[in-house]
């Protein structure tokens, strides 16, 4: 693999950039692999990458029905944070965040991780208490967060109206090492590294069936023929239920549309990520200058990658109240992604009823930030057949036992 | 005992339509399944009105009976007549499963009047006003709260919950501002 660097660019500039090689190969599938991963989104590619890097398993195919990174990886609001309340969540998101810190160097691909800081506004007394609780939990979990004053909030984000008549800002939970990344680059960087390890990324290859014998997966039928495998990982986000159905089991997930939008680009005016849960909205400014805004989730099952517009309106009302200067900016583009929501809104990284089949799903609205950590934990599960400490709590069995990992507790809502 | 005080004290306003709060009115929520024995009589005795059909409101002078859901009616009457109405209902529906309760204080009522009164509500309610039938009681959403209204005498009567009377008054005035005619 030709390494990327400023010098490489300078060298290539003389030949009008004719010398760059492909970032990843486009091979035809082999007859069989040691491991097949369904889904070449961020999570699937990261799983493959850590299978190779941490466990030496490189005879791997990653199957993608569309183009790699084209699902939720390519349509999220790119927020990276780990200020979660519950121990299992904090562990995996913090692992993820720490992997993001060096991901550009690890992959030799600039994923533009930008640790500009994430603040979650507290706008009611109840929310203040919730975030103080998270701050205490984070201190014991080794996650660096701090509950900051309204003055500090204003200092970090001057365009905020902290004296809103309805919901004045009472403080914020501040994670200085949270931030954003370039979503496409994460998928592309992992893809390039996987391809470089000899793994086959097979795009436009839809899985149409999962074959198993005696409770063990033997391979998958695809639009490019049957592909045999010793291990199968299902990492397909919004379509998890569909693939699980092919494998013969039902998941505690529902697929719903989550929406986002960007404004037209403007000069830098906001250096941090702000989340306002009381009024339901979050926003950051991309390197291009667009205000990147996350909206709400529809309450009904939907596979259309477009949602209902009232959620966009609700979000914008909330954000204009919080950031009055937004009013004359313009919405450039809005879109939706299909997220899979579990019974406790926390993910699943789990064994399945099939012995050599593993599933990673249910990231709901929070998948992008988890990509490296999720891949790390899923790779460990696939390699060893048993979950490591990062994945252990995210098994499917928790729903039967009532052992929830409920983060809504921290979102400042009672239930 | 003091006089009843309306939810908001602000005076009416003149925009391109006239908005004012009216009342206090008497209101009774009556819940009974259609076909309940004595239901017709109960509504008649309480209001003098016939039992309204689906989504209709029947008017008889100062008395009204509106269809709210398959097993719910809203009776509107002078405040002083509420006790009498409740007694009449109890009598007519004696022994039948029903629920009748005074909700006079739980509501705020607005009048929106003028040739363009509908335009005010078009800004707030996802309702096709061109297709709103005469005598139709429409329950819907007005901006961010629940509301019910009907059309009569060159205007609309709108009912919402008492606690959001201020919000509703502000909204109606805002939407009736001169210069924002549709």
């Amino acid at each position, binding site marked *: 693999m030709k390494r990327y660097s400023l010098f490489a660019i300078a060298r290539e500039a003389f030949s009008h950039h004719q010398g760059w090689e492909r970032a990843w190969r486009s091979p035809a599938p082999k007859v069989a692999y040691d491991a097949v991963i369904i889904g070449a989104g961020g999570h699937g590619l990261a799983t493959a990458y850590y299978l190779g890097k941490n466990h030496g398993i490189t005879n791997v195919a990653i199957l993608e029905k569309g183009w790699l990174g084209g699902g939720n990886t390519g349509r999220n609001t790119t927020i990276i944070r780990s200020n979660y309340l519950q121990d299992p969540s904090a562990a995996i998101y913090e692992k993820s965040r720490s992997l993001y810190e060096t991901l550009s160097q690890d992959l030799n691909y600039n994923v533009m991780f930008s640790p500009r800081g994430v603040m979650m506004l507290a706008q009611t007394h109840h929310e203040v208490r919730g975030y103080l609780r998270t701050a205490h939990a984070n201190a014991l979990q080794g996650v660096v967060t701090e509950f900051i004053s309204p003055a500090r909030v204003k200092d970090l984000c001057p365009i905020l109206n902290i004296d809103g008549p309805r919901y004045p800002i009472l403080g914020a939970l501040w994670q200085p090492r949270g931030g954003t990344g370039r979503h496409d680059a994460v998928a592309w960087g992992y893809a390039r590294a996987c391809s470089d390890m000899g793994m086959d990324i097979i795009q436009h290859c839809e899985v149409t069936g999962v074959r198993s014998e005696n409770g063990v997966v033997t391979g998958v039928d695809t639009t490019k023929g049957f592909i045999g495998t010793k291990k199968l990982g299902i990492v397909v986000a919004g379509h998890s239920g569909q693939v699980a159905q092919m494998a013969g089991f*039902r998941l505690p997930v*529902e697929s719903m549309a989550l929406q986002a939008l960007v404004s037209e680009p403007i000069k830098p005016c906001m250096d941090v990520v702000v989340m306002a849960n009381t009024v339901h909205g979050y926003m950051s400014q991309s390197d291009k200058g667009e205000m990147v805004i996350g909206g709400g989730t529809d309450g*009904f099952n939907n596979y*259309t990658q477009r949602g*209902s517009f009232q959620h966009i309106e609700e979000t914008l009302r909330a954000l204009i109240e919080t950031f009055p200067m937004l009013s004359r900016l313009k919405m450039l583009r809005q879109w939706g992604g299909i997220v899979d929501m579990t019974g406790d809104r926390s993910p699943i990284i789990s064994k399945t009823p099939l012995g050599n089949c593993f599933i990673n799903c249910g990231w709901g609205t929070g998948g992008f930030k988890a990509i490296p950590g999720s891949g790390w934990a899923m790779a460990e599960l696939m390699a060893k057949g048993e979950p490591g400490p990062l994945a252990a709590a995210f098994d499917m069995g928790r*729903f039967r036992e009532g052992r929830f990992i409920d983060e809504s507790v921290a979102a400042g809502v009672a239930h | 005992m003091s006089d009843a005080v309306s939810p908001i004290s602000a005076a009416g306003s003149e925009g391109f339509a006239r908005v004012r709060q009216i009342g206090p009115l008497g209101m009774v929520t009556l819940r009974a399944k259609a076909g309940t024995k004595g239901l017709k009589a109960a509504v008649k005795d309480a209001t003098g009105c016939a039992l309204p059909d689906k*989504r209709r409101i029947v008017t008889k002078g100062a008395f009204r009976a509106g269809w709210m*859901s398959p097993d719910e009616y809203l009776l509107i009457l002078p405040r002083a007549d509420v006790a009498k109405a409740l007694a009449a209902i109890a009598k007519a529906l004696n022994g039948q499963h029903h629920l009748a309760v005074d909700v006079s204080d739980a509501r705020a009522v607005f009048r929106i009047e003028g040739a363009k009164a509908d335009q005010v509500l078009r800004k707030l309610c996802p309702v096709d006003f061109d297709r709103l039938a005469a005598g139709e009681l429409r329950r*819907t959403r007005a901006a961010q709260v629940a509301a019910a209204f009907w059309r009569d005498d060159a205007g609309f009567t709108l009912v919402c919950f008492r606690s959001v009377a201020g919000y509703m008054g502000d909204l109606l005035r805002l939407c009736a501002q001169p210069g924002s005619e549709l």
Partner: protein
Amino acid sequence: MLLLTCPYCGVEAEETELAPGGEAHLKRFGPGSSDDQFEAYLFARKNPKGVHFERWRHAYGCGKWFLAARCTATLEVFGTYPAQTSGPPDDIIARIKARRPDWKGFA
């Protein structure tokens, strides 16, 4: 922005007048049920990409819960019907089959 007709009051209501309520025709399991049954009741969802039966409440209207048959892939609506039914009515099944000949039926 869905448009669903409330089978009780006949209003063709837009989504903002409604509240979604998840999968329809779930059977409640209480005390005495097995872990499997209870887990399935609370969590296992069909989540189909295609014909789906679901609950809606006409929250800003007559307040009644009703059920809808809808395609989650196209958002096409096959019909709505009262909540007081244990399975989809025949006319709705027929309508779905007419439009989705390969639909496997309600199970």
